[in-house]
């Protein structure tokens, strides 16, 4: 088993507060790994640490054998890490195509002062790549629409297309189905699986239990900044500690392992 991503003893302290405390886990290459936990458990902090927006107070983050703990976000993007954001951070005043094209920034080889045919050809190629990505997430009809006019679900898909435009090896999804209904989240689930089928490793943070159980190969559970457990998607729900973390100690029997419908 090749590990693509490895967190080893990673901690992040903000003054006296330990947002992330001695977290270690591995994500196998080609897997879809779920990262779950109650609100405030530190999931987004972990994602921020992996994507370079925060530097760990302690511990190391390794990507394919290379220590990337100190790298800034743009270097991590170049190394193949892409992400979406819990709060959806699309570029406003821009169309769907423009948003996705910015994702292609890294793959532009031509120098800026190159004129004429070479540049025009490269522009055309990149436009084509962007178009295919937009088709993939089902937004062909709105490719030239300003993102402000799109529905919430479509905006989330734009963000995924934009992240995919960087041709990542590791895709970090921070609550991509927040606020979605069942049909929409099922679609996202299918999208994630098809992305994974192409060889992209995925770290999925989400509260949607159905989605996580259906789609993930492994699940890491965080609580109070620490790793509670790591297990397969069905076993993880049978763990008493996980139930307690989500529901408190009184209603332990209320959660049953969700019928994954497999």
């Amino acid at each position, binding site marked *: 088993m090749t590990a693509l991503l490895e967190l080893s003893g990673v901690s992040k302290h903000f003054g006296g507060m330990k947002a992330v405390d001695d977290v270690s886990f591995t994500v196998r290459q080609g897997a879809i790994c779920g990262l779950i936990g109650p609100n405030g458990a530190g999931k987004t902090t972990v994602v921020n640490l992996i*994507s*370079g*927006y925060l530097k760990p107070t302690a511990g190391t983050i390794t990507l394919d054998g290379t220590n990337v703990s100190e790298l*800034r*976000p*743009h270097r991590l*993007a*170049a190394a193949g890490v*892409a*992400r979406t*954001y819990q709060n959806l*951070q699309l*570029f*406003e*005043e*821009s169309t769907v195509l*423009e948003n996705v*094209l*910015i*994702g*292609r*920034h*890294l793959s*532009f080889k031509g120098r*800026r*002062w190159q*004129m004429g045919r070479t*540049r025009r050809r490269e*522009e055309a190629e*990149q436009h084509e790549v962007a178009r295919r990505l937009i088709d993939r997430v*089902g937004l062909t*009809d*709105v490719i030239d*629409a*300003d993102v*402000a*006019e*799109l*529905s919430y679900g*479509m905006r989330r898909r734009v963000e995924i297309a*934009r*992240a995919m*435009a*960087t041709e990542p090896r590791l895709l970090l999804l921070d609550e991509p189905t927040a606020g979605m209904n069942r*049909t929409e989240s099922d*679609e996202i689930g299918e999208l994630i699986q098809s992305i994974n089928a192409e060889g992209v490793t995925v770290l999925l943070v989400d509260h949607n239990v159905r989605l996580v159980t259906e789609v993930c190969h492994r699940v890491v559970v965080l609580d109070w900044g620490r790793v509670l457990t790591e297990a397969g998607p069905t076993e993880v729900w049978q763990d008493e500690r996980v139930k307690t973390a989500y529901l408190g100690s009184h209603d332990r029997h209320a959660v049953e392992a969700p019928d994954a419908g497999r």
Partner: protein
Amino acid sequence: MFDWLEPLTLFRLDTALILTLLVVSVHVTFRVGIMSLAPMGFAAVGGYTAAIIATKTELPFAAGLLAATVLAGVIGALFAPPVLRLRGIYMALGSLALAQAIVVLIRISDFTNGPNGIAGIPVEVKTEYLIVALAVAFVVLELGHRSHFGRAAKAVRLDERTAEGLGINVFRVRFVAFTSAAAIAGCAGALEAHRTTVISPDQYGFATLVIVFTYVLVGGNGHWAGPVLLTWGLTILRDLLQVAGSHWEDIIYGVLLVVVLLVAPNGLSDRSLYRGLRRRLRGRTSPTPPTIEEPAEKVASR
């Protein structure tokens, strides 16, 4: 080539062209989201460098111009790292402090003739040169605008952190913008020195800054043609009204700036301005924009 024009008109034309260069400089920084109040400081560097070289050495005009541009750029590059790390109001203050420090240093230094300024700078600048210089600037701007660099600049302006997550080296983008804007402002300062033949520390204060900012803000961040065309249009208007040089001009610009900000806080090229306008023209009553929804069946069939 332009001898058929009256000397005064020619002078005003040249001044307008040089002002356009300054507008380009500020526009470049605004395009990447840098809110810097420093341009007049760099113009001062450029103006004084060219003036000193012209009056105290035997070097040709081209050398002075080059030195002015390069020195302004170098100073910009030197102060870019600390200034660019600041955000919002701190950046505005830091850049203002830098510009004012430059002007004050000029004012108190004997080398630059102190508050009296430098006079007797030879007139070397012909209108043709200015037009060529601007044309070059426009070509470069347009190339940049249409390239991935232009897209990256817009991304950096809109949302730095997200842009960085997509692989854009935000610091380098801003550094290049800040430094080249400094160089351009220095060049404009040098050209102005050689056109007006007299410079003094007082001309690099708020007054010109406000005018340039008016043009850039009103012209918008979308395309460089906005501020440039606006500069030309308003300069012509100003000449037609023949209030150039009077007190009222400054007051009008100050008021205009405030009014524009009230009407369009994000500049006139802000799309949301026009969306609101379009909606009202179509007579819609609902305040929310129509969202585009895909029918469910279409999606399920993918």
